[in-house]
């Protein structure tokens, strides 16, 4: 298995951090049906539309799709790989498009402003075909 890219110390924020700085991106493995089953159990979201092909088809879909909160959890990994979690003040995402099973998300973040020790990070999750599945932002305390 290929190790996912991971924010290390080199990406840790430091004094002088400026707008435009990018967080080390996080590229995931393609989302398998096993991952969806494990995430359903681990997250407590047992909505069968994500894990049961029969239910997905009964709703007029061709296949199951990933939980939006799985991608948000990946964004959480991007953030806590960059700063300790206790520095995260708030974050929000909009789920812009569904992630099909076998989709391969990449999480990215870019500092858009630093004011009074608080950095605002613009966040996105994209698929290899360019589809943006999540957009959002987070506020991180750098002080």
């Amino acid at each position, binding site marked *: 298995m290929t190790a996912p890219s991971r924010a290390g110390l080199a990406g840790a924020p430091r004094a002088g951090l400026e707008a435009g700085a990018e967080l080390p991106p996080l590229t995931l493995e393609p989302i398998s049906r096993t991952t969806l089953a494990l995430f359903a159990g681990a*997250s407590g979201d047992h909505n069968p539309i994500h894990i049961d092909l029969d239910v997905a088809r009964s*709703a007029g879909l061709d296949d199951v799709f990933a939980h939006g909160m799985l991608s948000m959890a990946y964004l959480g990994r991007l953030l806590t790989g960059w700063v300790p979690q206790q520095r995260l003040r*708030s974050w929000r995402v909009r789920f812009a498009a569904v992630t099909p099973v076998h989709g391969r998300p990449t999480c990215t973040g870019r500092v858009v402003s630093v004011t009074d020790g608080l950095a605002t990070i613009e966040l996105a999750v994209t698929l290899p075909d360019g589809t943006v599945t999540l957009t959002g932002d987070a506020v991180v305390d750098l002080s």
Partner: protein
Amino acid sequence: MPVDARQATAYRFEPVVVTTARERLAFFAKATGQRDPVYRDLAAANAAGHPDLPIPPSFYFSLELEQPDPFGWLTALGIDLRRVLHGEQSFRYHAMAYAGDTLTLHPRIVDVAVKKGGALELLTKQTAVTRGDELIAEAVSVIVVRHPEAGA
């Protein structure tokens, strides 16, 4: 069938009282590919200054699902789960919480908005998370209910 906004905002949720086991957080870490040992290993969490495994930032959404029928409120409001999409999610944090903490969640629907001539309805649900008297986090979910037959 459209959602009755008055019924939705008046819907009384029972508070959810939940204590998360360390093993459950380790399972969540596994399911999300999290390799940072702070989220999987007690000794690593302790070494980073945490009393136990931290509740990870998006797991506050999962806490609310820890009840026998977590989507029962949708059913009670006449909403078909297959028509529901998660539109937006946000969190605001006031303090860290950990495996073993007993947390209480206080959900309520604060807004119902109709879009696209009734083809979409947006329910905004806000949940305060407390530990005793201490506010730990606030979560806001926007749930999209699709009514494709109502669209222009």
